[in-house]
């Protein structure tokens, strides 16, 4: 097999042409390389360049909180009993002494009150989950508003989106496991939603719950989904997500020395390793401290679940709040179809809008790509102001989310601000349609204003705050011209032209019909990049002309 060793070594020498390792560590690395090929792997990665910007940390927070969730989750599975068998509680928490409850609830009580450190780990697990979902959402906003989702990163955007959705649902399943009054109410909600599905709803409900609500199967089933199924898929997606980040290399902001063809920053080893590695500990440390201080999900205060009881401020975790908002503001429409079958629109419509609000994010890169028709790779980020329509759409989406969050917390708003519950609901019903539109137009105008300011700055320099009196008596403010690096940074962005519809007749004079799709695309493109969609950026000629006039204006 090994022909090389026979050819290059004499009998007395080791069969390798490699230089002698300098120390033990190198020897160990040599050993591993012979089995795993680590040198080839490390060759291009050890000094891989990562650009620096605070917003690039958001993705790291997601990764680290995910790791924290897994670590604490493993600990919790060692003590948690995912069973709905009934037991009578006789633990140290006296208010619940002698109360019947499921083993799931009882073991969560034990984790909280009898296992040293158990309460802390439970709190870290829950807090980290909230941070995880929040960080994913904010990370996606960063990617969205900077256009980092453009080619070649569309697929990674979709991976990230799936991670967000799975994260939200895994959070919901986890929240349901302790079988306390609040989590049981959440599951009841889910049952009602499933029953509202036409035709197959009752079947899905029976199969999922193993019989009628609540039955005794739902907690063990959710447990498997929560700790195995969804995290498994998420882990796979996460690895794929990170491999793609490595492969595409990170995006960067425009600036001197930065082009579409390079990436400028610090090497992985040592700076980025130290910063990123250190950052993991910072995140973990902060979440631990929060968990020591702020109680989250005090299940002992809610009591075990009973379907005929409820605690008052029944609220899901915040990331499910917008679905709660949808369900609360929907009028109770119930209609009869096909000879007496019931169609529960009041629950079904919100149930359908929920994924639509989410999917709107998932497909955006493809829609924008289609509108621009841009087939090139993009590695330089857009400043949000330079893509006004995209920025405005994102802001409108966020405002919709927030409006629904208000709807989901209408009882809290009512009690805290002494408002009428009904008027908040009516307000949210109107706001659902109106607020995003207003936010869209305001944001777009704002972006255009900022673009105009940039243009002004490029052409006339920065306001210096020095007022000068000219010989003929006029007062002017002295503007200092921008440095070359700022001039470049402010003018580096690209401007798309709206796509034109092909001429109505082709070169032979034969009438050509533009399809609906092509027309829509031209319309959208005009909206994005036509007049009113962007401010034409300053040209070199304009700049020189003003320069030659010595900045008088």
């Amino acid at each position, binding site marked *: 097999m090994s022909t090389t060793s026979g050819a290059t070594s004499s009998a007395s020498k080791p069969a390798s042409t490699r230089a002698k390792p300098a120390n033990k560590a190198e020897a160990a690395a040599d050993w591993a390389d012979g089995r795993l090929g680590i040198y080839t792997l490390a060759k291009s990665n050890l000094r891989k*360049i990562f650009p620096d910007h605070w917003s690039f940390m958001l993705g790291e927070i997601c990764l680290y909180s995910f790791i924290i969730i897994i670590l604490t989750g493993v600990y919790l599975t060692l003590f948690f009993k995912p069973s709905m068998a009934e037991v009578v509680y006789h633990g140290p928490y006296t208010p619940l002494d002698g109360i*019947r409850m499921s083993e799931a609830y009882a073991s969560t009580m034990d984790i909280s*009150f009898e296992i*040293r*450190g158990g*309460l802390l780990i439970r709190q870290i697990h829950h807090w980290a989950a909230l941070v995880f979902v929040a960080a994913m959402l904010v990370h996606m906003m960063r990617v969205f508003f900077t256009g980092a989702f453009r080619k070649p990163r569309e697929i990674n955007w979709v991976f990230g989106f799936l991670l967000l959705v799975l994260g939200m649902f895994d959070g919901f399943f986890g929240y349901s496991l302790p079988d306390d009054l609040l989590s049981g*109410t959440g599951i*009841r909600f889910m*049952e009602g939603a499933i029953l*509202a599905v036409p035709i*197959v709803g*009752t079947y899905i409900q*029976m199969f*999922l719950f*193993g019989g*009628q*609500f609540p*039955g005794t199967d739902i907690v063990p089933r959710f447990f498997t989904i929560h700790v195995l199924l969804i995290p498994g898929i998420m882990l796979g997606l996460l690895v794929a997500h990170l491999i793609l980040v490595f492969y*595409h290399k990170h995006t960067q902001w425009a600036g*001197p*020395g930065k082009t579409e063809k390079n990436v400028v*920053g*610090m090497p992985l080893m040592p*700076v980025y390793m*130290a910063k990123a*590695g*250190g950052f993991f*500990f*910072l995140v*973990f*440390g902060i979440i*631990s*401290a929060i968990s*020591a*201080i702020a*109680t989250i999900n005090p299940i002992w205060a809610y009591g075990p679940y*009973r*379907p*005929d*009881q*409820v*605690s008052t401020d*029944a609220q899901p975790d915040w990331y499910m709040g917008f679905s709660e908002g949808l*369900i*609360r*503001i929907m*009028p*109770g*429409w119930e209609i009869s179809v096909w000879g*007496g*079958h*019931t169609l*529960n629109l*009041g*629950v079904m419509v919100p149930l359908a809008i929920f994924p639509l609000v989410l999917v709107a994010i998932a497909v955006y890169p493809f829609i924008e790509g289609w509108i621009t028709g841009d087939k090139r790779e993009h*590695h330089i980020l857009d400043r949000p102001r330079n893509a006004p329509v995209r920025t405005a759409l994102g802001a409108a989406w966020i405002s919709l989310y927030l409006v629904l969050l208000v709807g989901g917390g209408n009882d809290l708003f009512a009690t805290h601000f002494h408002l009428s519950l009904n008027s908040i*609901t009516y307000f949210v019903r109107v706001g659902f349609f109106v607020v995003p539109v207003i936010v869209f137009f305001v944001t777009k105008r704002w972006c255009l204003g900022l673009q105009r300011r940039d243009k002004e700055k490029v052409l006339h320099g920065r306001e210096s705050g020095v007022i000068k009196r000219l010989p003929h008596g006029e007062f002017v403010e002295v503007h200092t011209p921008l440095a*070359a690096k700022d001039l*470049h940074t402010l*003018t580096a962005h690209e401007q798309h032209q709206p796509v034109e519809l092909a001429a109505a007749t082709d070169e032979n004079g034969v009438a050509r019909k533009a399809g609906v799709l092509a027309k829509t695309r031209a319309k959208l493109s005009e909206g994005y990049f036509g007049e009113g969609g962007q401010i034409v950026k300053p040209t070199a000629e304009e700049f020189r002309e003003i320069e030659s006039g010595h900045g008088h204006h």
Partner: protein
Amino acid sequence: MSHDISEENLPESHGDSHGHAVAVHDDPFADPGLPVHEPRRTDIDERAAKRAERQVSLMFVISMLATIGFIASYVIFDIDKIVYIFPLGHVSALNFALGLTLGVALFCIGAGAVHWARTLMSDHEIPAERHPIEADDEVRADVIEQFRTGAAESGFGRRKMIRNTMIGSMALVPLSGVVLLRDLGPMPEQKLNHTGWQVATPQKPLQLINVNTNEPMKPEDVIVGSLTFAKPEGLEEEAEDFQVQIAKDALMLVRIAPDDIKDNESRDKGFEGILAYSKICTHVGCPISLYEQQTHHALCPCHQSTFDLADGARVIFGPAGHPLPQLKITTDEQGFLVATGDFDEPVGPSFWERKR
């Protein structure tokens, strides 16, 4: 402070770019190239560097102490020790001590590493080239050619019958997995249409048992203006299917002056103004628990569906789609409140097969 810095360590000049700047004069907006590296204080002042080194180590030492503190807290504090800490209030001493020491131990490692990277590791920005993700035309042509050869050798395109039957078999085989899920649960049948009250008949009525006292009730026990909760006689908490039963059987009783009851049918189902409604909200099934005496409105805390109990539990606000079902009640020979049959319609959230 600046006199600490020895002259020979200072950089020669500032502000000029490296060589790769484009000729700036013909395009004012051209990329001037990477700016010159500005040294940090720790780069040129050995004393500052030493100080930074000590700071980093100090953080690592604090972390070690905190971990020792964590272990000590685990041993020292009793799990049931509650202490008062301003402004948090009463908290578990163990949880508080463990969480803070762990937090400090982890945070200081992170802070040390980041401080080390920021002050002492090189902060030279380095450009690295990107390569297009797309392969060049030659590679593309080569791969496509190889694929074509492979496809031709398989005969996949030529032998249509094999291809089609293979696709068919692969499309069908996942069905086995779906079928296997059938035994997850029973068929719905009539389960959702009936409650535990269905065993009641006029000959053998079921008593209404007060959920709080576990006693049967006489009409005079139901006070005007309050909400009383009831379950059927014979349903005990110890019962194996208690949760499933109570999820459907739970009743709420109100007493309204008979003249105030707007709905005749509803009044007839009640007894001397006592009305027994399902406690399970018809929206998605939360138990209804809030009652306003003056208006006779009952509010579901989950999504605020509001029902007018004086008017057949009609929905007057919120997302619920239909009124709460009402149970017909009367009294037995001993004068206890009883039901003589099931609800006329299914309780709880509506579903496809629900007849209206």
